[in-house]
């Protein structure tokens, strides 16, 4: 079981090996190594189209998650699954959007991409941020994940500070 990475865009050079390595660390922290996860890197045009189709928002965004299991309690992994059901879903990464944000804040692109990916995986695990309470729960979870990530890798990642309004 593993991580499937697809790069459908050519606007931003994406280091696939770096992304995979970081995501494997996140999976280890979250205890989801036995689950498949799909990561699809897209540009603003494609992200906008997907956002419009599935959320009726005609704008690009940084991440959209499509959980395989739509009714998970936050952080509760499904159990007793057949091998074919060990799939958490897909995370679409708006790499062009993320790159534009990084240029504005002088942050490292691939580090930010890892943070965004962590956020997307949390959505696959049932975390939401539609209410303040949900956002607080998700923020705490992300903070824990990234703190552990930093401890293991020596990085200095931080949760993105803005309040997300996207639904997964």
């Amino acid at each position: 079981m593993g991580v499937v990475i697809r790069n459908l865009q050519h606007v931003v050079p994406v280091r696939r090996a770096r992304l995979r390595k970081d995501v494997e660390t996140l999976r280890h922290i979250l205890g989801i190594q036995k689950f498949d996860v799909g990561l699809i890197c897209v540009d603003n045009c494609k992200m906008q189209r997907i956002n419009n189709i599935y959320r009726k928002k005609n704008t690009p965004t940084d991440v959209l998650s499509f959980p395989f299991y739509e009714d998970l309690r936050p952080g509760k992994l499904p159990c007793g699954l057949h091998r074919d059901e060990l799939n958490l879903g897909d995370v679409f990464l708006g790499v062009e959007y993320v790159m534009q944000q990084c240029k504005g804040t002088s942050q490292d692109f691939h580090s930010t991409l890892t943070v965004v990916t962590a956020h997307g995986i949390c959505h696959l695990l049932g975390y939401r941020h539609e209410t303040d309470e949900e956002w607080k729960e998700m923020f705490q979870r992300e903070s824990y994940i990234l703190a552990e990530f930093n401890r293991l890798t020596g990085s200095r990642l931080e949760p993105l500070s803005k309040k997300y309004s996207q639904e997964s």
Partner: protein
Amino acid sequence: MVGWSFGKRQQRSRLGNCRNQTTTMLKSISRAVSIASRLTNKTATASATRTVEPLVRSALCLPNSAPIRPYTRSIWMMCNNGAVSGYRPKLFSSKGALPSSCGCGGLHTEGDKAFGEFLNDEIKEEKKIQKNKTLPKMSGGWELELNGTEAKLIKSLSGEKVTVTFNVNNSIPPNVEDEPEQGQKSAENEPEIVSTPNFVVEVTKSSAKQALVFDCHFPEDEQVAHGEGEEESDIFTIREVSFQPAGDTDWKETSYTLNTDSLDWALYDHLMDFLADRGVDNTFADELTELSTALEHKEYITFLEELDGFVKCN
């Protein structure tokens, strides 16, 4: 110059043989359909689209002439006197041949004359819709060498030489789509013909005696639907990787060939990053298809012109 016989390369691996033969067969079928679609396309549009029409039409009509049966009929029918219609061109009869005054010694039939006129029209139409009169340039400092339908893109960087080779023959994938609605075939719905050739990347370091060779493909994504469907394949994929002696034109069959079908995904990502660092990335792949499409169209027009010359007078 480092290089291998391109045809030889396509036959090299055990698994590759089956896949390549199937792929070659599929591409041959697609080529037949593509040729048929070009030869029957009479639509003059500003866009670079061509009509994909049935291989055989029920009848062809030239202006102010009797209906002429398509040339795909069997010879038996053409020689048979049992007729459904009155027109029966004779293939092996002196009555059908026009007087040959050019002295070329070739056969000149009424069919040849009609064929030549048809080709004239086709050539004009194809030149009208030709997107690029000159071949598009690749970004990234690639030098282009052409040898008929084979193209080589070469680049040197920091002691390494990178060569990308592709052939536009059999490079247009079959366009599998739903049947068009009855009587609804507008120019806007015609599929655009895009050439997506397999390409081979050779990386040679000046100090090494071997070249690292990547066989790359454009995936034929069957998940693409019209409308809301989204493509979810990489723009190009690596199929096989092998070391080959640098400077040797013969493919070394005894070199291990890594097939990516069952490869560790992390290793695959490193290989993709390796290529990207040398300029073979998604941007390159997109530009390569533009170049290949333009080259394929140019070669097709040249072929039609040569065919026209051959039919008229050799």
